[in-house]
């Protein structure tokens, strides 16, 4: 039971970070491999505020999200927007370039070592039930992720902004024709995606660790979530993250010999049978 619970918690964390990617990749159709770099930025903002400025942990989370979103918006306005119409290969190369730069930057400012992180008292410790040990922080992650999943789903499916976003993605020309400011929608969406990445990165420091190689180490996981869940599909990402988290933790726990092999195998098999993802719809572009 504890294994399943830990798997769910790590899946939720994956979801938090990769749902941002699902937004940029799926809704905006931009292959942003630099997503992990934004998550790393959020992590560093959180750690720096916590350790050097003494800001309480809960307050660092929104700051991390906002700071990352700000950087995201600046990059979107200057660089990303030029590549919306480019091929996927160009987008991949461009974002790999950003990843390299971010890794070098993190090395320069923070050094190669893991960043220490001390959680506040009330998030430490465990709740012991018969047959199940629940880490308080993990429980906190699960609740927060579910809230965000619900909120995002409402945002995309149920609000005016969501409708405008879906229209802009499906047919930018027609959307422009009916008076939607497509550029602004895309900038806002990109900001949302990077803010989620920053938040996920800040929350993930405790479980995933934080060092300059973060963007490369975990980008594969984020991509798997999006690819398996069907890009642009928030509930799909949630389910995919949960499957991935549970399979990954259970795999490492029960059969450590094969390690991460399982998740790659699951992904490849998945993609062969459903190239558009578990819950995906065919790309409209």
């Amino acid at each position: 039971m504890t294994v399943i619970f830990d798997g769910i918690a790590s899946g939720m964390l994956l979801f938090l970070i990769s749902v941002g990617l699902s937004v940029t990749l799926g809704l905006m159709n931009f292959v942003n491999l630099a997503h992990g770099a934004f998550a790393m930025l959020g992590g560093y903002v959180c750690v720096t505020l916590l350790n050097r400025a003494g800001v309480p942990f809960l307050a660092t989370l929104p700051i991390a999200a906002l700071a990352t979103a700000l950087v995201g918006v600046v990059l979107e306005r200057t660089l990303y927007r030029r590549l919306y119409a480019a091929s996927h290969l160009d987008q991949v190369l461009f974002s790999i370039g950003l990843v390299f730069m971010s890794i070098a930057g993190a090395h320069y400012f923070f050094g190669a070592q893991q960043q220490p992180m001390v959680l506040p008292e009330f998030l430490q410790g465990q709740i012991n039930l018969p047959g199940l040990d629940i880490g308080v922080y993990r429980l906190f992650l699960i609740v927060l992720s579910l809230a965000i999943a619900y909120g995002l789903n409402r945002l995309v499916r149920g609000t005016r902004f969501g409708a405008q976003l879906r229209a802009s993605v499906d047919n930018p020309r027609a959307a422009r024709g009916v008076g939607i400011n497509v550029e602004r929608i895309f900038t806002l969406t990109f900001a949302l995606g990077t803010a989620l990445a920053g938040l996920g990165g800040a929350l993930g420091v405790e479980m995933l660790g934080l060092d300059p190689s973060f963007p490369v180490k975990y980008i594969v996981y984020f991509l798997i979530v999006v690819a398996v869940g069907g890009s642009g599909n928030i509930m799909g990402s949630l389910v995919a993250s949960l499957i991935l988290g549970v399979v990954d933790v259970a795999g490492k726990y029960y059969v450590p010999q094969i390690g991460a092999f399982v998740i790659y195998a699951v992904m490849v098999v998945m993609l062969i049978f459903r190239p558009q993802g578990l819950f995906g719809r065919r790309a409209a572009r």
Partner: protein
Amino acid sequence: MQAALTLDLAPIARADRWRPAELAFWLIPVAAYFIFPDNLVLLTQIAITALFCLSLDLILGYAGIVSLGHAAFFGLGAYAAGLLAAHGYGDPLFGLVAAAIVTAVLGYVTSFLVLRGADLTRLMVTLGVAMMLYEVANKLTSITGGVDGLQGMEVLPVLGQFEFDLYGKTAYWYAIAVLFVLFCVARKLVHSPFGLSLKGIRLNVGRMPAIGAPVNARLSAVYTIGAAYAGIAGALLAQTTQFVALDVLSFNRSAELLLILVLGGSGSLYGALLGTIVFMSAHHLLSDLNPQYWQFWLGALLVVIVLFARDGVMGGLRRLGAALGRNK
């Protein structure tokens, strides 16, 4: 109707002929041997990477199949040759052929997975295949040595004549010779009707079946060939360094290779070679100064290329040539 039958194929046939500039290019490795006799190890690395880059160029530049996991074939080839040499079959050419066969088989099998999806799915599937191989090599420590690398290789002299020496002279000429032979084969290939049909598929995949080209069969054939090339490059690396590190299968290697190809200009064989030369030289010179700065500038360079100079060094040369042509 008559006009179509007497279509002038002369320009296509002419493209197959060797130009003087190309012959001059192949004097570079000879010259480099005498100019930089102390850097033969680096030069050998350049030759091997150039071959590896050539293999990606065949599948990406000509056929348009994107791959984020080309290191899978490189690594498999390296381990195949390495394991053969470590178990007493140390003849280098035999190792190359064996590596080529093994990787071609993997390439053929995985080509069907790769061909199923569009760009994004292909990126993910190639990446997934490479990561699976990485994990396998990582965990099978009894066979591959895991993170410690594969040791104990005994490579016999090339053709029974030329022993691998301490200064890397034999290794250098061996790598250059293999690169040259395979380059000629690739050159023949891309100018053949087969190569032209690949270009057609990349440019307009909907039209090709209409003129009778079996798209999937062609793509899977070129993917197999590209895989074999990468395997040979990996085998060369294993034989010349007498060591196989786990890093041959890593994601970084695949990503870096893409970068090199784009730097040189994909879709042109010399672009692959030039990109490798520029990249490896820059890496050698700059990373001595500071490894972290190197990575930063590498990233910046990539961003600039994508935004402003999509066709790389070859494109730049072509524009330069066109500008010079106008001035005359």
